[in-house]
């Protein structure tokens, strides 16, 4: 969880490595103290020679490299999840590391950012805090069914939430700075630009480095339509000065869904405009249908297959959204959640020959190396899987590759993820559609039930759970859930799926009663068996959840 931090380890493995490799050096100087930096560099360079032979082979093409002195072993541009992780770990492994980051602001731009990056300042953390805040209105409704009564309807004070949220973000950015400082990483505030394969320019000052890491992340993208200047993106949506009375959200991805839930819960009127028939392209089809239904039941107005053409501002200041199907008026805010783009502009990448794809994402190999051997990239700027824990994995792997003599590839198999919509979604592994394509014969187990809480609250909340199993090997290929606690529930199952466990292993596990999660270990009969052949059996069983447990 983002609010907790493992205390940085002070590189005892590195000390051991150094001791083993260089027995002549006694006593060991503190690699983090500046007085010893010179000697420290020397040692590292010796160590580097060994690595160059095994790991960073490309470097040894240039023999003079070994003698060249750099200001830093690693210079990281961008102190978000991936950059901070790579920098800290590299420093813990004994490298001298600097990281540069733009000044703090809740809204990102060419000149503002902040230590912590998207996750902490403009993504996961503030989003989740807003989800917590907005979920209460559903809880108030639920609590009525449990005997709680409110004489006057609970009212929400927007400014209290914003103030408390921003105080938390400031606290977190401070913690991240401390983490870097404690790891001995030099933090430089300013905009970093690559000048040559070993030089970074930060606001006019030049720094040399053996390795440069680009971890500048991504930023929301708003399509260029007439009136797009009136639209807000997710950065702004997380820090609005007042409650949006009536908001249009354009987009069907996870950000759009999460904000629809947030604003609805905080008592706004919410309209969601999606280009396709369903939300969440790429997710399991059944989950896509289910979450759409559940969100509609909670009062979000869906406008399907409706694309924005223009935004018009009226004299009274309200906004109208013109779409391919007509014009809807009276919005206080129009939010675009229409994708994010890598922050690769004006970084000097083209001039040094770092190759990017057509979206501007930096192309990297399996070790996160760019087309320039001394330049590496992790996180959203590479547009692989844009999730904080993946950036952390990439950053951690890179530090090991570069500074611990242990070439490490990030492993993208069975990466779990969550959508903090209301209700939330958790998933790991393949969707039913992907599994059919890849394996052909699969068994699908589903449970679609009214949870115990809803039977009392009287609300129309339901839960959908789904296991995709390989018919031939019995391996669980995918797990999907939409309903309360999905994100928390999915994590443990992700360990099981990553470990390659079978349906029989799930069945052998005893349930925890009464929970929702126990459904995943009590699914006895396949809902459908999908076979390559023409005849596929189909059966649906929607028995009450309590009954299914017997």
């Amino acid at each position, binding site marked *: 969880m983002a609010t907790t931090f493992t205390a940085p380890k002070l590189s005892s493995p590195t000390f051991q490595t150094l001791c083993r490799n260089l027995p002549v050096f006694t006593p060991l100087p503190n690699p983090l103290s500046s007085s010893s930096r010179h000697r420290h560099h020397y040692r590292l360079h010796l160590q580097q020679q060994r690595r160059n032979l095994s790991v960073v082979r490309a470097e040894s093409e240039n023999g003079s490299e070994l003698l060249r002195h750099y200001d830093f072993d690693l210079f990281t541009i961008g102190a978000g999840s991936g950059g901070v992780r790579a920098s800290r770990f590299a420093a813990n492994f004994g490298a001298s590391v600097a990281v540069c980051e733009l000044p703090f602001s809740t809204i990102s731009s060419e000149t503002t950012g902040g230590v912590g990056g998207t996750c902490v300042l403009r993504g996961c953390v503030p989003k989740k805090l807003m989800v917590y805040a907005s979920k209460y209105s559903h809880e108030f409704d639920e609590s009525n069914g449990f005997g709680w009564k409110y004489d006057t309807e609970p009212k*929400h004070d927007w400014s209290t939430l914003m103030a408390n949220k921003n105080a938390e973000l400031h606290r977190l950015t401070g913690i991240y700075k401390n983490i870097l400082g404690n790891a001995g990483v030099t933090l430089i505030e300013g905009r970093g630009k690559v000048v040559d394969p070993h030089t970074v320019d930060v606001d006019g000052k030049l720094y040399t480095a053996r390795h440069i890491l680009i971890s500048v992340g991504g930023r929301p993208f708003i399509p260029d339509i007439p009136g797009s200047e009136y639209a807000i993106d997710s950065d702004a949506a997380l820090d609005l000065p007042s409650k949006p009375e009536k908001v249009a959200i354009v987009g069907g991805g996870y950000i759009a869904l999460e904000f629809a839930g947030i604003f609805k819960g905080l008592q706004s009127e919410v309209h969601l405009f999606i280009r396709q028939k369903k939300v969440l392209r790429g997710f399991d089809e059944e989950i896509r249908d289910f979450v759409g239904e559940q969100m509609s039941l909670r009062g979000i107005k869906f406008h399907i297959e409706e694309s924005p053409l223009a935004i018009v501002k009226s004299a009274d200041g309200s906004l109208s959204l013109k779409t391919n199907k007509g014009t809807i008026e009276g919005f206080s805010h129009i939010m675009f959640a229409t994708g994010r783009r890598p922050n690769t502009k004006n970084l000097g990448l083209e001039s040094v020959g770092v190759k990017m794809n057509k979206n501007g994402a930096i192309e990297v190999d399996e070790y996160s190396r760019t087309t320039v051997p001394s330049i590496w990239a992790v996180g959203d700027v590479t547009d692989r899987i844009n999730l904080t824990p993946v950036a952390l994995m990439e950053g951690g792997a890179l530090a090991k590759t570069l500074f611990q003599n242990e070439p490490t590839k990030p492993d993208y198999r069975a990466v779990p993820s969550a959508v903090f919509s209301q209700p939330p979604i958790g998933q790991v592994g393949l969707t039913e559609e992907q599994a059919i394509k890849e394996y052909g014969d699969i068994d699908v187990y589903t449970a679609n039930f009214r949870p115990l809480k809803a039977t009392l609250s009287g609300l129309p909340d339901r839960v959908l759970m789904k296991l995709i199993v390989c018919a031939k090997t019995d391996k669980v290929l995918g797990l999907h859930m939409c309903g309360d606690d999905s994100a928390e529930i999915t994590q443990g199952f992700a360990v099981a799926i990553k470990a390659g466990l079978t349906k029989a292993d799930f069945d052998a596990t005893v349930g925890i009663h*009464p929970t929702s999660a126990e459904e995943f270990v009590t699914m006895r009969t396949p809902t459908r068996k999908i076979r390559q052949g023409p005849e596929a059996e189909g059966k649906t069983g929607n028995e009450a959840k309590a*009954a299914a447990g017997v």
Partner: protein
Amino acid sequence: MARKMLVDEEMTQTNQEEAHFDFDLFVIGAGSGGVRAARFSANFGAKVGICELPFHPISSEVIGGVGGTCVIRGCVPKKILVYGAAFGGELEDAQNYGWELNEKLDFNWKKLLHKKTDEIIRLNGIYKRLLSNAGVKLFEGEGKIVGPNEVEVTQLDGTKLSYSAKHILIATGSRAQRPAIPGQELGITSDEALSLEDLPKRAVIFGGGYIAVEFASIWRGLGAEVDLFFRRELPLRGFDDEMRAVVARNLEARGINLHPQTNLTELIKTDNGIKVITDHGEELLADVVLFATGRLPNSKRLNLEAVGVELDKTGAVKVDEYSRTNIPSIWAVGDVTNRMNLTPVALMEGTCFAKTVFGGESCKPDYSHIPCAVFSIPPLSVVGLSEEQAIEQANSDVLVFTSNFNPMKNTISGRQEKTVMKLVVDAETDKVLGASMCGPDAPEIMQGIAVALKCGATKAQFDSTVGIHPSAAEEFVTMRSVSRRITVSGKPKENL
């Protein structure tokens, strides 16, 4: 279905025997274990009868109800009340998130109670339907064993029915017991606590087990003044000591008065309530005194002596690994056997019984790595070994990984309550031996972890799993540094 699996010879035999008995199986007690065994046996093709006492929320010698403890007097109503009570804390937490609520919130206990009863009546009906859909014949009345293959059901009107059965399954569960102290009749058990007419303002709970802790959380969450008395230093004996301390701390922080190492010695009726006297000489007044001092198997009125079914000294029916008693035609599952008294375990035992006896597949219940949860507020959930058990059983060093953090929700709500998570790992094999967590959603989180542990997952496999961010559960896959290493000799080495 099972019959098809038998060879012809056996088939003939079965048919012959069938002719001699009214039922292939007669089950006494329609709780979790009994219903499961009955249904599955019927699905395997057996002719099954089952008897159960008439329905009532409060059990006695002569009342019970289809669904049993779990549905009528345990897991389900308890969880409903926990949901209701948890809103108390939620409403406090909401304020720093910007929600303005009335100073005085109104909570209507009668409404909750009424809805709870409606729900268990609904479930009671569903269970009856499940039985009839499976073709199981249900009798309402008290079942007794007359012979190794004969049961007698005394119906409500006093008439007696007698049936022969090839197999008899005892699944009569257990009931709460009271300590033998003066005035014990003034106290209540968990049965009554789930159906109180009025919400107590002052509640005294005696006991340190999960039932005691759960009711303390329920009543406190609904606004009562709660005093919890228990004999040990910490509640929840048998659980990981570190986690027990966490639970105790959380209960206290939520406003429950803990009285460790204290026994109740007497209850006296007064005009102002029940006067409770402790062995420390303390006296306090309560509206309700709950005894959560253990449960005893319901084996007394089954007439087991008549056929010589062996009981242990607590009255639990003794069974072998296949749930068979010393009388070959009589079997027992669930709490009445006092093995591991959990609904899902009774379900497992019931399933294994049906497979063994009617499914043509010998099946022993597997008691390793059974996860469980305590629905205190916040809840505790565990699977596998506690740190103490791991050290005791260890052949090599034990590594303990802990994470003690402020959940993200609390950063704004301001609630001072840490979530604690723990993994206990075998240093040599890297296998995760035990996992525990105390904090919001712990039971939901632990289920998936339980699958991994059941299959012998290693710490490396946990570490290779990517986290779900931001969640509490992701801590389980991001525990990088060892908190302590305990050598085989049992000496902890801190801060490795």
